[in-house]
């Protein structure tokens, strides 16, 4: 069990820029910890942490829709602010807003920040949806670098000291997406979750993303299943085949209250739900 304590915290710093924050954290000293929203750190602060580095004044919190249709979200934007933003509500049939409605309660969503959540990076509702939308993440380590969110967790970036400064959602045309999760209770971390995105052009499927999260490993794309849907569309037969294929290609594990076998079963259930939801939304249009 993780030991938690706040009594030993003796220093609270408020850097005013990414560079100032970076200089405070670059040594990787385990006694220093970056503070974004605080919803995680208040209850899971390791006992060796003696210094908090509050990022509120150092990092952006704005959400901006660019002329090309892309959306930039600052690291300190809260889940509530993101969910309510008009451009986010419209992106890919509102999948980000739908998903964020499943994260904790409003009392948490008014505090949780996107940057803090991405940096934490586990048992996440957000990550699979952002990967399905081809999001890139900008991190700062003395200079800024932007990488696909899917690669952020694969490479060394996530393990080394760094700051998440924002996320970028590229423009999408004719994208419909759906999110589904399974958890013990509505407020609990997901046992597994899925996000599917299907782009259409003249009733033809042009692009597909199928991403499973909380497997409990890092989020995974079901690339063979994506190809199947690209080739065969969203017919009942194709969806049925996608369920079986996704179960074979997504690697699940036994941890966090569920066995690998149970998760693998749920992979198929959630992929079917998401794809059917996309079909239903297309009919609604």
């Amino acid at each position, binding site marked *: 069990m993780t030991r938690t304590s706040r009594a030993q915290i003796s220093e609270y710093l408020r850097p005013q820029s990414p560079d100032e924050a970076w200089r405070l954290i670059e040594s990787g000293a385990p006694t220093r910890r970056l503070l974004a929203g605080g919803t995680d750190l208040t209850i899971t602060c390791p006992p060796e942490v003696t210094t908090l580095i509050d990022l509120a004044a150092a990092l952006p919190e704005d959400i901006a829709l660019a002329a090309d249709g892309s959306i930039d979200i600052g690291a300190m934007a809260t889940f509530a602010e993101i969910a309510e933003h008009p451009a986010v509500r419209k992106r890919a049939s509102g999948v980000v807003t739908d998903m964020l409605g499943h994260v*904790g309660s409003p009392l948490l969503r008014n505090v949780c920040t996107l940057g803090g959540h991405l940096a934490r990076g586990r048992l996440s509702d957000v990550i699979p949806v952002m990967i399905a939308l081809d999001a890139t993440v900008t991190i700062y380590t003395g200079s800024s670098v932007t990488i696909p969110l899917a690669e952020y967790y694969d490479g060394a970036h996530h393990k080394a000291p760094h700051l998440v400064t924002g996320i970028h959602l590229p423009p999408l045309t004719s994208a419909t997406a759906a999110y589904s999760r399974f958890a013990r209770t509505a407020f609990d971390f997901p046992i597994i979750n899925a996000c599917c995105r299907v782009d259409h052009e003249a009733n033809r499927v042009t692009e597909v993303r199928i991403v499973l999260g909380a497997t409990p490993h890092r989020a995974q794309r079901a690339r063979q299943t994506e190809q199947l849907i690209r080739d065969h569309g969203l017919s009942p037969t194709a969806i049925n085949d996608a369920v079986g294929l996704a179960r074979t290609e997504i690697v699940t594990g036994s941890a966090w209250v569920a066995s690998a076998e149970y998760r693998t079963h749920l992979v198929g259930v959630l992929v079917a739900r998401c794809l059917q939801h996309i079909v239903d939304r297309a009919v609604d249009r």
Partner: protein
Amino acid sequence: MRIAAEINGRRIEETVGPGETLLEALRRLGYTSVKDGCAHGDCGTCAVLLNGRAVASCLMFAGQAHGARITTIEGLPAEKAHPLQQAMLETGGVQCGYCIPAMILTAADLLRRNATPTRAEIAAYLAGNLCRCTGYVKQLDAVELVVESPEGGAHG
């Protein structure tokens, strides 16, 4: 460390611990309507308005409130019940009362941004405010009563 903030319309400067949560600081300063229920963000009894938004004060460090505007139930006018308080009394939404200050503040946050929420929207917004007495029906009735009053939900 020192923080400057506005609590219930009054500017304050106070010393808080670097590891102290906003919940702990507010209670130490005498705002005991802010309840220490679970201290893990699960029960919602510690909710306050931070710059108008309902937040779980147990999941924030006090230092994060530097420069912020904080409202607790003590900040509502004492001479006359707030419409949400009155509605809770009229519908029987209050039993032991432990969860009520936070629930009223959270409902006020909702009504400030959506004056005409549906019952489902009210229930969704109060989902993080647990009550072990009522079963929630009367409390949802109370918020609906305010929404349907002549002034509508403009009581946020």
